[in-house]
């Protein structure tokens, strides 16, 4: 039964991702990306990482994708963008990246098949409770966390600097993006 759920969520994730790259309309593509993220969250959940699953939904699907949709709405793409997209779907253009990706896929498949991945050991070998995640983050991975927070801080300062309007009257960091794309 668990296997069935796993393959179901996996299939959804793969199909949705395939739809992401073939959609002509950017918003539709993003919607499939959100579905794909949700499916991956389901996978995490089944593999015993509920915390990662929740964060996947809250952070990726719930915040980052919202901002992506937000930006695409602001860009106000119409039929012209769809036509441009369909022009880009010319085999000449995607053949190169496609082949390179195919090689990577092949490599991944070989590693999984030959290396004897964890699939034989069954699903959810051990559930990882939230507490353990926390302990791991603030124990062995403390430096990584601190580094990540430094990077985020730098990003925040940089974003504020970039989004800050030079002469405009109203400033607020949350809407900087919108104002620039106005």
């Amino acid at each position, binding site marked *: 039964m668990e296997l069935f759920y796993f393959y179901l969520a996996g299939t959804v994730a793969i199909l949705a991702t395939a739809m992401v790259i073939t959609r002509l309309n950017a918003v539709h593509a993003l919607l499939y990306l959100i579905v794909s993220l949700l499916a991956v969250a389901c996978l995490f959940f089944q593999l015993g990482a509920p915390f990662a699953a*929740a964060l996947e*939904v809250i952070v990726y*699907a*719930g915040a980052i994708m*919202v901002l992506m949709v*937000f930006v695409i*709405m602001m860009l106000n793409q119409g039929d012209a963008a769809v036509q441009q997209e369909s022009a880009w779907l010319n085999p000449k253009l995607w053949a190169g990246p496609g082949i390179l990706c195919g090689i990577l896929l092949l490599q991944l498949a070989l590693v999984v098949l030959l290396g004897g991945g964890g699939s034989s050991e069954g699903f959810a070998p051990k559930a990882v409770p*939230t507490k353990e995640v926390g302990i791991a983050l603030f124990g062995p991975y403390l430096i990584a966390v601190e580094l990540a927070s430094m990077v985020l801080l730098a990003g925040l300062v940089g974003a504020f600097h970039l989004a800050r309007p030079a002469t405009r009257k109203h400033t*607020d960091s*949350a809407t900087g993006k919108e104002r620039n794309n106005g």
Partner: protein
Amino acid sequence: MEAVTEPSVLATLLNIGGILLAAVIFAALLTWGERRLLGFWQDRPGPNRVGPFGLLQVVADMIKLFFKEDFVPKFADIPVFILAPTIVMIAMLMGFAVLPIAPGIGVIDLNIGLLFFLAMSSMAVYSVILGGYASNNKYALLGGLRAAAQTVSYEVFMGISLMGVVMMAGTFNLREIVLAQEGGWYIVPQFFGFLVFLVAGIAESHRLPFDLPEAEHELTAGFHTEYSGMKFGMFFVGEYLSVILISGLITTLFLGGWLGPWLPPLAWFLIKTFVLVVFFVLLRAAIPRPRYDQLMDFGWKVMLPVSLINLLATAAILIS
């Protein structure tokens, strides 16, 4: 194996169905209740013609919405336009799944219940944003943009404000959080967390002081300008669902959930939630709407520091 689980599956189904049905029915009743309450506060009767106390107004409205032409504008992004209103309904109903209503009543007892709620509430944003985008209408677009900025910002404070409660209870499990309040409701030690969560909750459900995404005086109807019929109805009921969900969650997190003397637990939960819902309606009757940039300023300059300080103070006290 299967034979043993059979009755419990049935019970679970009843439990799930009962809770979801009750949630939808309460939300629908709230469309009537809110108008009656507003009428009461505004010296006017409110809907009082259909059935006793106008109670059947809900039915009349449903019939009207079902039979109204469900107009989809030609210029809309049709699949997204149809998808948008369903998202809010589904996300909100999923949110009800983790709500511990009383001992033995509740859909699922997730270890990450609180995170699940946050995830669902962040999914509900899509409804408004996509509705605004798909309508291909400038008022709707502005409404969608406001919704995106407002909800993403207020989600941050919402999440941070809850961490104090999580620290005190030591768990994300909502049922355990309620049980941890046997010694005293968290509204006392976590008063600032409560305030921030309340405000963020109003912003998330975009109710009047924070109803900028629809702001009828500025954006006619904001994100749902182009919606009619049952699609509009779904937005409408979705909003009330989120009001009930937020009220229920505040009850669970800060007001001790079903805990209380004399009355059965279920009654306590319902009473507390009801009081909060009425408070939401009262807010709508009383307060004007801030401007969009004022709302953002308030969020980032007041709510964020308050919730962070609350978090730090809680952590410091717990550790010491």
